[in-house]
């Protein structure tokens, strides 16, 4: 084989997309594991989540550096420019999701030191929704699918509602039995982290809509037709 070729710009963009998806997959996995560790009371799994954010951090840096070079070397225009600027922002959101998985795992580690406060129903449901939002937002990114991205925005309200419900319910447990305060607070924190993950998925979806249609739907998402 003679020598290598410098990538064509479109191939570079394709690689960027692939790396971003990899990052999304890692972030989603880590959220799933953290919540699974909670539901299954699996302490070793908690430790694996806590010790495993190296790959995601590495991708965070690599993706930023790819975007930086693409902007500097190719001076992209129009949809290509929006794709790269969106990638920078999505990258940051995904890295934050990875951090939130760590925060969840930390809360789970504390929670597992106590007896279960209650059967867990809403938190696994929140985790499902948050992961689905993240997955759909990334699918929308790959497929440039505005309606799918819009669906992610609409789901955020459900997640917010569940978080409020979890808080209220746990408040009653804490009032009845102060010994549950510590573990119940951790469950509230976990629901808060899951709700934040939904917010990051929402940001990704907003970036997708911007990338595809050049419309900025942040802060007035309701004005966008599905």
């Amino acid at each position, binding site marked *: 084989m003679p*020598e290598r070729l410098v*990538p064509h710009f479109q191939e570079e963009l394709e690689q960027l997309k692939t790396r971003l998806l990899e990052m999304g997959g890692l972030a989603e996995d880590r959220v799933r594991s953290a919540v699974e560790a909670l539901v299954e009371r699996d302490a070793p799994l908690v430790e694996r989540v806590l010790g495993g954010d190296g790959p995601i951090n590495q991708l965070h840096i690599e993706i930023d550096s790819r975007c930086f*070079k693409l902007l500097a*070397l190719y001076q992209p225009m129009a949809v290509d420019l929006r794709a790269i600027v969106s990638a920078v922002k999505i990258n940051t959101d995904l890295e934050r999701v990875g951090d939130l998985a760590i925060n969840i795992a930390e809360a789970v580690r504390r929670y597992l030191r106590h007896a279960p406060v209650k059967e867990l129903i809403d938190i696994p449901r929140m985790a499902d929704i948050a992961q689905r939002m993240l997955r759909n937002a990334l699918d929308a990114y790959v497929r440039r699918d505005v309606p799918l991205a819009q669906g992610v925005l609409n789901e955020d309200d459900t997640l917010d509602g569940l978080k409020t419900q979890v808080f209220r319910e746990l408040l009653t447990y804490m009032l009845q039995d102060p010994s549950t305060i510590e573990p119940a607070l951790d469950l509230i924190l976990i629901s808060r982290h899951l709700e934040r993950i939904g917010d990051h998925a929402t940001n990704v979806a907003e970036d997708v809509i911007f990338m595809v249609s050049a419309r900025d739907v942040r802060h007035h998402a309701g004005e966008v037709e599905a």
Partner: protein
Amino acid sequence: MSTDIRMAPLSDIVRPSDRGSGPAPTKIAVKGLDFHYGSKRALENISVDIPANLVTAFIGPSGCGKSTFLRTLNRMNDIIPGTRVKGQVLIDGHDIYRPGTDVVALRRRVGMVFQKSNPFPKSIFENVAYGLRVNGLARNRAHLQARVEESLKAAAIWDEVKDRLHESALALSGGQQQRLCIARALAIEPEILLMDEPASALDPIATQRIEELIYHLKATYTIVIVTHNMQQAARVSDQTAFFWLGRLVEFGPTDKIFTNPAEKLTEDYVTGRFG
């Protein structure tokens, strides 16, 4: 876009900064090169190692010496009266300015493409066949035809001209003429291809084709390109050299030159704060 020039599988596509296999071997080593037009010094103490099978771009403002330097690499300046060269240009370790150097043989190894496309007033076929004939490189008619076809394919123009090889080259568009000139340069199988503003007279689409062609060609050739267009240098090259007032100010990986140059002067130039 023609499809024949996109052929690299993703796994083969690596920027020099991405590779783990160390720096590419040096094809052209320039050591302490001075160049004078009469009493005017146009190049001052240039030393640089140009890597094999990569694209090296020379950038800099008008009159900075980048084209002069390019022409020292195949002794094209020899034909200008009153010029003087000091220093060494080593290609594969051999000094091309050593007395007794066969300049014709040198230029066969170091092909050149100019700013203005300059096809001969002959047929498309004859333009490419010419160098093969005068250098005695064709064994027979069939071999000649095969080499012409190969060269036109390598220059990504075959599909556009295959049905009219015997029409005049002057009937081609500017972009096609330039690719024909590249085919003509490739026909005699040079190792190095020098390009002096190869796309500056072309429209954006034709320019893009030339740039994609450059991507493709470096698999086989060492390419050195002079360009006024900084963005073009950023897009096509692996290494960039910035010239200013006859001096080589900075030379390094293109991504470094355009994102974090070491020299203030380079930074001022690439950010347009120059002068």
